[in-house]
């Protein structure tokens, strides 16, 4: 914007937003008002002293279409059509909904008006910052009927006061960017708690992705009111506040671990024989399990926010949390896991890794095979438990789950690769028993020629299942 177009500028401490807007309205000005505070910028277009458009920068724009779907005001197929054309522009999206008779023009106007009020109310609480008014109008999508500044100011002030009052009444750390999500432990019927429709709607939208501001926008309820409801839902232990910084840290740590294990897995693919292949898989799985345990010792919910927790307490916590599952697996399906134990918060698999000193040949392969299946099952259990505890059903949680599934698929392919080889070997053995004994050389040749096959692992082929035995 050209310097000469600027009519006035100053800082908000000298002249507040309310006074600036009032002045511009009284003088019937046309132009654009820019208000900056920290990373946030508010751009308000005025025509003859009335608000014709507003844009907020520095805060993520909520996906209104997705939110309308969540509150059953729009179906997802329609939302998809509109999204394709409108991109991320809320104004265009709403106009399209009206065009197709999926929303009334009155509702669109109400929603746009509410969004303007919400943004101005937020900006009214800025203490530090600068403003500048330019005579030029910035081109902005404009589907809204011009708004009278006085009525917008009245409502914005009321909402801003409500925030201030709330801060005085209850001790709260909630801001308009706070994100809340359902607690994973809640499994009873929330209707029995006697919550009003408003509370249930906020509860439904607390999915770990939508900030408080977005919830207010879709429900067209003032942010302060939403903050009050969230506070109450927190007291009822139905939701928790998401710590985005912590989630980013959890994601980074788990991503590094998955990449490390994937690299180890890729390296062991070059094994020359099935025994080495299985041993390599045991290595990968035990490394991954211990990596997850080490990660959980830092990020487990019950160990968080307590400062330096004594090491022995962390060890006891991990053993208490996971040893029962390990015992269950070893007693019911994979007796080889009885040889493993928790030592200093790690799963000690030395007995399996040094089995070649005790047994050889086919029996060793059998033991390794069972260990691979057992450890893979244990790994799945640990990850599911860990994710549920640390990030729950949040956006980060779902993302990590997706990456984790990709990694498990790679492990499953390796397992499947061996299963196919095993089935071929058994078939060859049964065929050859009547004719002649199979040569060990033949088996080795089959290993390198096993085709990559489709389908899930652990398929119930008789040859693939580990035989039960006592150790």
């Amino acid at each position: 914007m050209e310097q000469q177009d600027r009519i006035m500028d100053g800082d908000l401490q000298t002249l507040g937003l309310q006074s600036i807007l009032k002045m511009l309205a009284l003088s019937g000005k046309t132009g654009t008002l820019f208000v900056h505070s920290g990373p946030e910028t508010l751009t308000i277009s005025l025509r003859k002293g009335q608000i014709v458009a507003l844009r907020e920068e520095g805060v993520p724009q909520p996906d209104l279409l997705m939110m309308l779907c969540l509150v059953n005001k729009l179906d997802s197929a329609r939302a998809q059509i509109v999204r394709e054309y409108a991109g991320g522009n809320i104004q265009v999206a709403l106009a399209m909904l009206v065009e197709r008779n999926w929303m009334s023009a009155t509702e669109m106007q109400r929603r746009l008006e509410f969004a303007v009020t919400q943004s101005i109310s937020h900006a009214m609480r800025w203490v530090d910052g600068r403003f500048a008014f330019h005579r030029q109008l910035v081109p902005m999508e404009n589907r809204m009927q011009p708004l009278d500044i006085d009525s917008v100011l009245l409502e914005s002030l009321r909402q801003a006061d409500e925030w201030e009052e709330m801060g005085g009444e209850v001790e709260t750390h909630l801001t308009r960017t706070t994100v809340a999500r359902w607690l994973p432990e809640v499994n009873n019927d929330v209707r029995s708690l006697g919550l009003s429709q408003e509370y249930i709607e906020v509860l439904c939208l607390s999915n770990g992705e939508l900030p408080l501001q977005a919830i207010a926008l879709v429900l067209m309820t003032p942010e302060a009111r939403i903050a009050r409801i969230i506070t109450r839902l927190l007291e009822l232990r139905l939701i928790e506040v998401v710590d985005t910084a912590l989630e980013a840290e959890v994601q980074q740590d788990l991503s590094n671990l998955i990449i490390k294990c994937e690299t180890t897995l890729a390296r062991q693919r070059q094994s020359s024989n099935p025994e080495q292949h299985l041993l390599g898989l045991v290595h990968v799985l035990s490394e991954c399990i211990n990596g997850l345990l080490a990660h959980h010792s830092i990020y487990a919910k019950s160990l968080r926010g307590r400062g330096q927790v004594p090491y022995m307490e962390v060890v006891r916590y991990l053993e208490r949390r996971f040893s029962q599952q390990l015992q269950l697996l070893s007693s019911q399906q994979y007796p080889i896991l009885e040889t493993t134990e928790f030592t200093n918060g790690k799963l000690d698999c030395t007995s399996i890794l040094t089995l070649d000193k005790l047994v050889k040949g086919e029996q060793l392969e059998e033991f390794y095979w069972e260990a691979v299946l057992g450890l893979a099952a244990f790994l799945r259990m640990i990850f599911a438990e860990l994710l549920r505890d640390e990030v729950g059903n949040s956006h980060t949680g779902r993302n990590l789950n997706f990456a984790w599934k990709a990694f498990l698929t790679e492990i499953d392919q390796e397992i499947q690769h061996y299963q196919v080889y095993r089935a071929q070997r058994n078939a060859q053995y049964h065929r050859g028993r009547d004719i002649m004994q199979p040569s060990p050389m033949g088996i080795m040749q089959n290993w390198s020629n096993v085709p990559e096959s489709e389908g899930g692992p652990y398929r119930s082929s008789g040859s693939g299942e580990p035989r039960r035995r006592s150790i």
Partner: protein
Amino acid sequence: MAVPTVLVVDDSPTVRKIVQMTLQREHIRVITAGDGLSALTSVADEMPAVILLDIQLPRGMDGYHICTIIRKNLQFRQIPIIMLSGKDGLFDKVRGRLAGSTEYLTKPFDSAELVQTVKKYLVNWQERMPPQYEGMRTRLRRRG
């Protein structure tokens, strides 16, 4: 503001997903390819700002080969290529450099290091886009 696109070429779906997740958190658009042929198609279609390229790829076209093809093409030769590999020997790094890679990251890489390296090559990415991609640049601006 327009969003830069990074192409991730790796045969492992795990690596593709992790890199995608990590970069998306930094508001970087990520497209992926599992083999050489799809990688070259994506380069032509999307004109990525940076390419993350694994060396070992299926279907007979490895990372070195793809790197050489891209470097020989006048339109795409400016795109920074970051090699991702489990091989950390000097020979592999020299080979990567000879094929035309800009940087070499050894697996397992740290996600923070990955982000830092990618961001280093995203500076002025729009300037590197050839004129025939002007339409795409405008589209990206609008999307942003």
